[in-house]
């Protein structure tokens, strides 16, 4: 392709490639930096201004984190909540979006309700009170149910369903399929790109859930990896707690390397999901943008 272009265009292309590569590098560099620092010794980290390649590679930081029962446990909690939460969210969102994409009684009213919550949130304290009143407090479901349906995702998914040709449904009705069958056998298989994209949105959101976990869960055994991660990083930062951490305590490895290692460990699992969903994801961005 490049060959068929004029020299001047080639120069533009080259500049673009270099520029984009540089931009990509600035995005990737923090990851690289986290990676090397997490393996470096503290002495070397202290002495070098910008550590690019440690002379000695050590696993202290990883041993410290992976040796902590709390971290492993919280990682398990997060994986569980993410998987269950994503499934629940996807199911509820798809079902409601589908229903609202058809001509049903009160359709407009329900869409209005959804739009209403899109614009006006209830706020933290009322939500807290609802979670408390419904008995979700201190249950992992508190991380899943209150945010199960994102009104934005719902609206976009509804647009997507509306874009599917009505003829398909009509054909299925003639063949004697009921609503549930149409939804599960025809609509959902056609909506894989949408499901993948929204699944990813939901999964990343739940994976990163931090404040809700802190707010609704009082048992440290149920805390998500983000809460524990922050604790590991903050508690290692001696000065913040000079007032507090006076009592004798074993010296953990230095905050910087542990922090970097912890971030990597907590980011990688969700990062791994991306490549598998990438092709759907690119399609997903177009969702609902053009209506046939």
């Amino acid at each position, binding site marked *: 392709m490049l060959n068929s272009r004029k020299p001047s265009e080639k120069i533009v292309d080259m500049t673009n490639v270099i520029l984009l590569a540089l931009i990509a590098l600035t995005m990737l560099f923090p990851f690289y930096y986290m990676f090397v620092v997490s393996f470096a010794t*503290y*002495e070397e980290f*202290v*002495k070098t201004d910008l550590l690019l390649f440690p002379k000695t590679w050590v696993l202290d930081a990883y041993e410290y984190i992976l040796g*902590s*029962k*709390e971290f492993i446990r919280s990682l398990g909690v997060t994986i569980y909540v993410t998987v269950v939460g994503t499934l629940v969210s996807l199911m509820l969102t798809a079902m409601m979006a589908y229903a609202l994409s058809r001509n049903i009684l009160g359709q*407009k*009213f329900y869409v*209005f*309700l959804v739009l*209403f919550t899109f614009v006006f949130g209830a706020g*933290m*304290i*009322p939500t*807290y*009170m*609802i979670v*408390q*009143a419904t008995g979700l407090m201190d249950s992992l479901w508190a991380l899943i149910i209150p945010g199960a349906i994102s009104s934005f995702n719902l609206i976009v998914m509804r647009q997507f369903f509306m874009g599917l040709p009505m003829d398909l449904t009509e054909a299925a009705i003639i063949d004697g399929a009921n609503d549930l069958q149409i939804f599960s056998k025809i609509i959902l298989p056609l909506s894989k790109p949408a499901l993948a994209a929204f699944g990813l949105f939901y999964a990343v959101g739940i994976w990163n859930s931090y*404040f809700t976990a*802190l*707010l609704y869960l*009082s*048992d*440290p*055994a149920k805390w998500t990896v983000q*809460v524990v991660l*922050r*604790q*590991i990083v*903050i*508690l*290692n*930062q*001696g*000065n*913040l*707690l*000079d*007032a*507090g*951490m*006076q*009592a*004798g*305590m*074993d*010296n953990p*490895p*230095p*905050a910087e390397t542990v922090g970097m290692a912890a971030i990597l460990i907590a980011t990688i699992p969700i990062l791994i999901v991306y490549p598998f969903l990438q092709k759907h994801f690119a399609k997903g961005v177009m969702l609902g943008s053009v209506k046939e």
Partner: protein
Amino acid sequence: MKRFMSITLSTVLLAGALAACSPGGEKSSTSTKDGKDSKISISWFDGTWETPVPEPGNEAVKKVNEKFNVDFQPQYIPFDLYTDKLTVKMASGDIPDVVGTEAADANFVKWSNQGAFLPLNDYVDKYETFKDIPQSVWDVVSVDGKKYGIPLYFPSKGGKKPVIRQDWLDKLGLEMPTNFEELTEVAIAFATKDPDGNGKNDTVGLGLAKGLVYDPSFGVYWGNSWYHENKDGQLIPGQISDGSKEKVTYLNEMFKAGAIDKDWAIKPYNDVFKEFNAGKVGIWYEQPGNDKGSQPQSLDLATLRKSVPDAKIAGIPPFTAPDNSQGFAGGSGYYRIWMLSAELKNDPKKVEKILEMMNYMAKYVPAEEQTADNEYFDWIMGGSGKGYNIVDGAPQLTEEFSQVAPIALFNQKQGGWDMDDQSMQDYVKQSKAPEAKEFNTLMGEMLSNTDFYISPVGRIHSDAYNEKNAALTEFATNELTKMVVGQRPISEWDKYVDEYLAKGGKDVIADVNKLIKENKIKGEWVKAK
């Protein structure tokens, strides 16, 4: 559309009403349960620095239940996240029997005024450890004379103090600075005369960090405490005092001479610790405390000596001020308070039980009595071999400590109200690393010969102060930073003070002075023995 709107609104209102009712209903059901059960159930909400965070129902909780014959239901959140959750909890009306906070801050005053907490004046005299709490600290945790909080002891002499590379002084043939002029000389020499002898101009004389953290004041006269008076005899904040002007003038001189890092204004203090430990900074800060002086993330002599084997540090005693005062600003003397819910006012038995527990847990055991034979000590620490081990004559906590030791549910003891500053000496014994013992010894010696000024402002609760002080401090820090780096000439000092006063400083000063007068308190000196 109109119809939809009205339906929607009524739905929302209904949901709101339901949500508002339910928590109340829940609470009444639990309190009736308490009545039947002979065991008193106590819900307790507090922050913690323990790691891992103590879990409800762990072994330590069981020990507390057994000892006090209660059903103890504690809940802990790491302190750096605690305020967020506490605020939501309080706002939603979900108030536990006991609530802890780090300090008597604006929220404490607000909630006290709203009647969330129980005044404890009639109770506290009955308990031994509370009797020794000084009036200055009771003032802090009281609102309108009502004692709403039980303060926990914290040595007022703690806090960051300046330290200097003694080996650099020796090498360059300089004396310990005793005033700002000498300090400037020393700092410039540290930066320009290559004290680390590597032939490179890569050292910093005076460590300074973003936001003027750890305030390079070297004495209360130049610090940010309310120490100076204006011409009307009103006490004023340090940021607008003559002392600050003098300090900033010298800092500006040092900055121009290259004795201060040229990037200091954007450098986080953690980076300065890192540079100090790498042997690049001549003057920086650390405080006495267990294992202080040997913690990789703060000042760490061990790391420093890896690159500079003969490094030696010393504390810088406070400078003598023009008014002949000589001393550091003391802390408020407490850290953390516990409040009791106002709903306990008809349940004196429960109040007494809670206070009994607090009283019991607050006793301090001096370092030499911290042995497995000491029954009390062994119990609060979770038992020898389980919560702690005695290593080289000092207790060393195990990894299970926070789950098995009852004390981890209450307080990390910093000393006792009746023990004076015993804990300062105990730091030496309790620290593990020889570098930490060395550091605490030299700091302890310096601080025991130092006078401390206790500002009266911490003892009053001024709304104007609580409301405006943070913004004023930020303004002052910004302006003083500009003056140090030469962005704003120091000749504009009077203009800066006027700006500070106009931004609300005037109201704050008026309100604070009014309250100080009303409460008949003033700044006090705690003299060295």
